[in-house]
């Protein structure tokens, strides 16, 4: 990590979805501010965790930054190149460097394609090898790398279990020799006993190839385990970022505090003694986010000021950023 410029830089990324009504002639009646101005950077070889409740925009952020949804505004550079505004060949070249793995092991592999076609696709699209045979050889190597037997190359996804499918998805993501992988809730659909397999594999690959990850998840325990730094999202914005131990041990934002206190711990004695901050109510609609601090209607410590003023994004401790009027590091 001698290179101090970050591999990935996201600046003020916004993704708004229009809300339309009507079946045929659609009319815009509002905007879902799914991602509403998100900035962060990821160092080479680092894993940044992105956590939050469902609907907070973490998945949309991960997908928009790869251009899978057209961004409303903002910029994303990967290895110095702007992925959102590149076109044609340039865009293809950047796409090669950034890949994504998904949550649903059933929906993320084309059921009509053999493992070989799936894993070779990125090589084919990017013209990485001259012949199909060479690509198949490389696909075999990749299968070995993710812990699958290379002779399964000509099988189809439905023959594999969820965990095995997730490995195939990882092999596909590795096929174009990427620098950066967005892990879009890669383990949340898997059984506990399989989750550890996949997480260990991701870590092994990171060590081996110096990969950089954005790890989107809602499982805070797993995020603490795998990530170097963690960003907490709430209603389309990031409310807190810090190194993992700093964040989990000294959370500054009341939302992060509540989130952490809600995570159950597999230890009955500890559980009995724990004091929980139980948040009331649900996440408000991202169509009309609350004024001021977006968390104020659910915040246990909110004051009058929180309703009016949007809190400033500030560094409360070295490397520990939070957006809360009341947080002091």
């Amino acid at each position, binding site marked *: 990590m001698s290179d101090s410029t970050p591999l990935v830089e996201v600046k003020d990324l916004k993704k708004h979805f229009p809300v339309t*009504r*009507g*079946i*045929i*002639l659609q009319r815009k*009646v509002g905007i879902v501010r799914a991602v509403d101005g998100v900035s962060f950077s990821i160092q080479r070889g680092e894993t940044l965790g992105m956590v939050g409740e469902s609907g907070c925009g973490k998945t949309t952020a991960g997908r928009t930054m790869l251009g899978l949804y057209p961004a409303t505004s903002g910029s994303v550079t990967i290895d110095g190149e702007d992925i959102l505004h590149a076109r044609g060949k340039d865009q293809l070249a950047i796409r090669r460097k950034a890949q994504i793995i998904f949550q649903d092991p059933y929906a993320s592999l084309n059921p009509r394609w053999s493992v070989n076609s799936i894993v070779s696709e990125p090589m084919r699209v990017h013209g990485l090898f001259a012949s199909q045979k060479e690509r198949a050889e490389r696909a075999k190597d990749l299968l070995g790398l993710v812990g699958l037997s290379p002779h399964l190359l000509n099988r189809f996804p439905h023959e594999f279990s969820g965990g095995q499918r997730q490995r195939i998805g990882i092999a596909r993501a590795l096929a174009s020799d990427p620098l950066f992988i967005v892990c879009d809730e890669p383990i949340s659909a898997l059984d506990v006993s399989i989750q550890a397999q996949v997480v260990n594999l991701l870590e092994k690959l990171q060590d081996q190839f110096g990969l950089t990850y954005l790890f989107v998840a809602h499982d805070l325990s797993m995020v603490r385990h795998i990530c170097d730094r963690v960003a907490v999202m709430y209603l389309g914005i990031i409310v807190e970022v810090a190194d993992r131990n700093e964040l989990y041990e000294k959370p500054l934002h009341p939302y992060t505090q509540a989130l952490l206190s809600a995570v159950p711990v597999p230890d009955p004695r500890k559980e009995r003694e724990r004091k929980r901050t139980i948040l009331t109510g649900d996440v408000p609609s991202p169509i009309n986010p609350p004024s001021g601090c977006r968390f104020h209607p659910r915040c246990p410590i909110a004051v009058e000021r929180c309703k009016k003023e949007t809190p400033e994004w500030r560094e409360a401790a070295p490397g520990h950023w939070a957006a809360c009027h009341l947080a002091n590091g």
Partner: protein
Amino acid sequence: MFQFILKRLAQGVVLLLIVSITLFLLMMEVGDPIATMGGRTVTRPSDRERLTRQLGLDKPIAVQYLYWLAGNDWTQIDTDGDGIPDKSGTRLGILRGDFGKSLVTKKPVTEMIAERIPNTLILMLASEVVTIFFALIFGIYSALKQYSTLDNILTTLLFVGYSMPIFFISLMSMYLFFILFKKWGLPYLPTVGMFDPEVGKTPLQVLWHMILPVMSLSVIYFAAYSRYIRGTMLEVLSQDYIRTAKSKGLPRRQVVYVHALKNAALPIVTVVGLDLPFLLGGAVVTERIFAWPGMGRLFLDHLSRADVSVVMGSLMLVAGAVVVFQILTDIVYAWLDPRIRYT
């Protein structure tokens, strides 16, 4: 909701315009209307020319369409062929409710349709009612007793009904209930027309004459409907909320008739609602076989004589009904399904 209806109506009007233009263009080429007028052949070229002018058939298609659509009472037409318009038009156009006059009968199309519509509706609605009644009973029974012997037998029979060409079932039922019954000295069913001319058009006569055509139509619709209802019921019965209802210890009756049927009603209502306007078109084949004086026969007879106004009139009537019923179905759907609100 009101806005939604207005919007849908506007879309419907556009749709109808497109449909009418397309059909009008097609109709221009289906044959020589003069040649078949009133069943007698016009041979003298001068007669032909005069008739063509009178009917406005010498005008460009666009103008003819305009006359058909909006009438020609605002313009002068040239009837004697001297190139000088001499008489103002009399047509009001379909937009103002004037469907034109039939070339064959010279009667206004609206009058002819009004004559036929009741005949068609009585036949079609009777079939629809019979069909839905039995299809609901069977569809629900069969879904509740899925894979029972009776379900299996009936489901297989449904396939036969579903695959049955309407003329085949009509001819077979005529053969059985008319010819064979007559031969065997049993009371036999009439096969032609709506009533016995000797007795007159009494309700009893119509009812008696309806039995065979309604039966033929019902067999075919029944198969399609009950397959659909059975499928919908099965789908609904496998939903989580049915399991919830059972877990609450509700009696089976309540689970089926309140929880399941109310949900299954949504798609069923939609399908029925969307099918209803097509009933106006009549059953061309059935009406032909049973010599039933309905819309289908009207359409068929006048199509073969290239009688544009009648054919266009009946087609546009159906298309218009389709548009209206689509909106009605949406409204009913919104009323039945609390999840849907049109704004």
